[in-house]
């Protein structure tokens, strides 16, 4: 009987150890580069959670693909068309990393990014602090995204994406 009670207590303690954090004040922006110009778009509609337990943290962030806004509404509609936002409404980033990384200011995480319905692995560079930031370089063709062109020249395949965020319990 004591053993069963012990198992129960142990399992309960393990549950208590898990720390759940929610994304807060988060923003993501992309930069599209072309021979003649550079365009930026941003979204403030990120939702995310991080779960840390047993010295491992797991996170998941989702961004509605439609929520990215640039300075031109026509360009945004083009972006929504090529990303097929109605078929693939969310862009997600997920990954795991050792909890000990949170004591460092800069670290890298291998993360899985799902864009246009295709999941690919990227290295996410994190600058951790009161307000953290992250950066990764998306490769459009890896996600089968048709690159828009301007005067016969396509935009760069590499699209840097930056995040700024805070976590709260």
């Amino acid at each position: 009987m004591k053993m069963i009670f012990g198992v129960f207590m142990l399992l309960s303690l393990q549950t208590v150890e898990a720390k759940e954090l929610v994304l807060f004040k988060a923003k993501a922006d992309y930069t599209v580069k072309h021979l003649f110009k550079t365009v930026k778009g941003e979204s403030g509609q990120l939702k995310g959670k991080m779960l840390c337990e047993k010295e491992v943290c797991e996170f998941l962030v989702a961004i509605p693909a439609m929520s990215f806004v640039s300075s031109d509404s026509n360009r945004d509609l083009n972006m929504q068309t090529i990303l097929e936002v109605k078929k693939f409404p969310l862009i997600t980033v997920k990954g795991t990393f050792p909890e000990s990384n949170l004591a460092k200011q800069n670290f890298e995480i291998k993360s899985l990014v799902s864009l246009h319905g295709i999941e690919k692995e990227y290295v996410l560079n994190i600058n951790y602090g009161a307000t953290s930031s992250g950066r990764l370089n998306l490769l459009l063709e890896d996600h089968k995204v048709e690159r828009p062109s301007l005067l016969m020249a396509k935009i760069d395949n590499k699209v840097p994406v930056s995040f700024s965020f805070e976590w709260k319990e």
Partner: protein
Amino acid sequence: MNWSSYFFLIFLSLSFYQKAHAELGLQDLGLTKSEVELTPKQVKEQKTLETRHSMLKTHEVLGLSTLGLMTATMLTGGSALDSNAHMYLGMASGLLYFTTAYYSLTAPKPSGIKDRGNIVWHKRLAWIHFPAMVLAPVLGYLYKKNEDDGKKSSSLVKQHPTIAGIGFGAFALSAALMTIEF
């Protein structure tokens, strides 16, 4: 506490344990079903976006072709009374211009989209080049007819080159505004 109570506690504890160890999923982020799953309405909206994209691509190609023809028409304006090249180029420009306009005016637009950026001026300039493209061919026809008949043209008819020039300028500017976007 009897045995059944202990088993219930263990079961409850295991449930919490499993939940805490489960991989994070979209449902954990508080996303609604419509944000995650595709609805028939969204499929229809994607089709609308694709139709719009395709029609505006055609609009873009036709618009640039129209600009080329308009340029040639403007360049042949000086010899309009000696040959028919200017007239035929003008007719082709007009035909292509109104086809270009058709693709723009009939392209479906998703509801709730407010125009921002260069598209605003691209549309505003149509208020200049559209009337000019209606008026210029008529005035050009009358001008040539009067010249052929040896009649004197009215002051409005004589404005054919000016009105065509204003239309060409507004159209070229409108095309340039969109060409620097993608």
